[in-house]
């Protein structure tokens, strides 16, 4: 691997232009009316910003969209046939979009690392996720700011996951530092950007987001067990919950999904894999029309159980990356950190 380089701040536009020439799409944080959001870069550099704390959408959606068409199929006229048919008319295409996720924060990169383990690392591989993931270049921008909702330092997700990211960036007074972490990253720096970067031999600055809220280590150990969450009462936290499902829809690691079949024409259907929210009633319904997570409190605790105890046992890492979207963008500002810190007891 080559060492660290500096991209001069006024050359950033060139970097984006060259990346968009090389790749099908480049996803960059851009200013919108509602806040900073990850959007495809179309050459309007004035909207691009690297100065953000949290985006209103999560960049993981570009790898694992909320809705994926698994396959389409046609059924023969009338589904009753005298002769058995040999094959379904199933048609599928696995999307392969070569893309760059530019300047995502380490927390979101950790979310991608989590999904890599969950969807491709254990047993069956999800071909739709893998195809998108293999064609995605991840460029992480380390973050030195936080607001009252970030809690990445407690989970160790403020540092770049070096096995997931291709290039890491850090903003300094001299310019933007860039360090390749994979072969793809090295190729981009060497071939694409060679004339707009200069070598840098200083130390890599440690990211210091300076979180205002924290989950103590011993609380995390309790969360891993699962039982303390079951025992705790969340009644007063979920009182204000309106079941809008924002928390699960914006969470970069939520991957629960549903497969539904939607008509798209006469005798033609598509099977769609859609994000499913544990906050909905349908999520935990079983055949006798019994809803297992009947109350808001159970659904709230289920989410926390899935993020901590379940993910740690199943995949060895936490499913929560401390990005704070579920609290910051919640209409009722229900805070899981507050719940954990006040209610979870050993």
């Amino acid at each position: 691997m080559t060492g660290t380089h500096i991209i001069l701040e006024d050359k950033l536009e060139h970097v984006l232009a060259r990346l968009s020439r090389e790749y099908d799409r480049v996803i960059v944080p851009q200013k919108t009316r509602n806040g900073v959001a990850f959007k495809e870069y179309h050459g309007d550099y004035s909207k691009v910003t690297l100065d953000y704390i949290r985006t209103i959408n999560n960049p993981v959606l570009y790898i694992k969209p909320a809705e994926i068409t698994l396959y389409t199929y046609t059924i023969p006229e009338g589904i009753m046939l005298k002769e058995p048919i040999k094959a379904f008319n199933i048609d599928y295409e696995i999307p392969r979009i070569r893309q760059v996720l530019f300047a995502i924060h380490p927390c979101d990169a950790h979310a991608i690392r989590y999904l890599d383990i969950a969807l491709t690392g254990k047993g069956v591989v999800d071909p739709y996720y893998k195809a998108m993931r293999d064609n995605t270049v991840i460029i992480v921008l380390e973050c030195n700011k936080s607001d009252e909702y970030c809690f990445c330092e407690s989970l160790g997700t403020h540092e770049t996951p070096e096995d997931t990211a291709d290039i890491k960036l850090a903003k300094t007074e001299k310019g933007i530092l860039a360090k390749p972490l994979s072969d793809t990253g090295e190729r981009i720096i060497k071939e694409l950007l060679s004339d707009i970067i200069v070598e840098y031999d200083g130390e890599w600055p440690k990211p210091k987001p300076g979180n205002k809220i924290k989950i103590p280590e011993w609380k995390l150990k309790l969360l891993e067990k699962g039982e303390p969450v079951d025992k705790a009462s969340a009644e007063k936290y979920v009182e204000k919950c309106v079941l809008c499902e924002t928390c699960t829809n914006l969470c970069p690691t939520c991957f629960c999904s549903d497969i539904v079949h939607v008509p798209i024409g006469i005798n033609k259907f598509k099977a769609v894999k859609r994000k499913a929210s544990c906050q909905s009633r349908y999520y935990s319904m079983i055949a006798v029309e019994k809803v297992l997570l009947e109350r808001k409190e159970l659904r709230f605790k289920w989410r926390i159980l899935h993020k901590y105890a379940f993910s740690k046992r199943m995949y060895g890492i936490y499913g929560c990356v401390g990005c704070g979207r579920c609290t910051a963008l919640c209409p009722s500002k229900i805070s899981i950190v507050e719940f954990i810190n006040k209610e979870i007891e050993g």
Partner: protein
Amino acid sequence: MQTVRNPYIPKPAHIESIRYETIDIRTYTLHLSEPIEFTPGQFVEVLVPGLGEIPISIASSPLVRNRIEITVQRRGMVTTGIFNMGVGGILGIRGPYGKGVPLKEIKDKNIVIIATGIGIAAWRSLILYILERRNEFKDVTVIYGTRYPEDLIYRYEYDYWSSKINLIVTLSRPPETWKGYKGRVTKYIDKVKIDEETLFFVCGSPVVMASVAKELISRGVKPDKILVSLERHMKCGMGLCARCMIKPGYFVCRDGPVFTLSQVKEEILGEL
């Protein structure tokens, strides 16, 4: 082009015959386009074209590979879709999925199967396997209960079953003309000789499973000798959709649907 195996794609299967078990339960024999290998307790995802997929236990013998039987109760949209199909109708099959009964480990043991209602469908595959390999097992007892006689399924097979194994069919609300056993399934647990190596297979509604498990534990049966078959709304069957998580670390589709009671004790007994 399609070189990577796509686990989401179902294989066609056509309905070869239909048996009417009760007013809302039918057993379908499906002729598969590709033979599958499975063990009792595993399930398949059945696609009804245009309506969707549901997980259903395989109810036929694991020794037959190109035909499977599924027993379906009409409940929602997809099961109604299956009911609307006749012989020759086309379904899609994905699977088998889940962990079934470890057939090698249950050899030379006493087996007790306790089920109610359509729950017997989850263990019919095991029963048929035992009937075909009867000499590999010691005492085998099936305790099966429903409310009314018209709710009993697989009635046409009881003579065959009871010729080789001990079968107790009991009704909790029997009509006056009923001459067989009466009462709930838990009443007949005492009829079975319980030793340390006896394995119990339980399936039924959550409340039934809880009360059976409680009765067995009170008789000194160890929780890891009790196997239960759980039901959740499994969407993908492969552990990729995370819908069927029952507690930290367990997916019903990948780690079940057959669990030992020691694995899911709180989930089962919590129903009482």
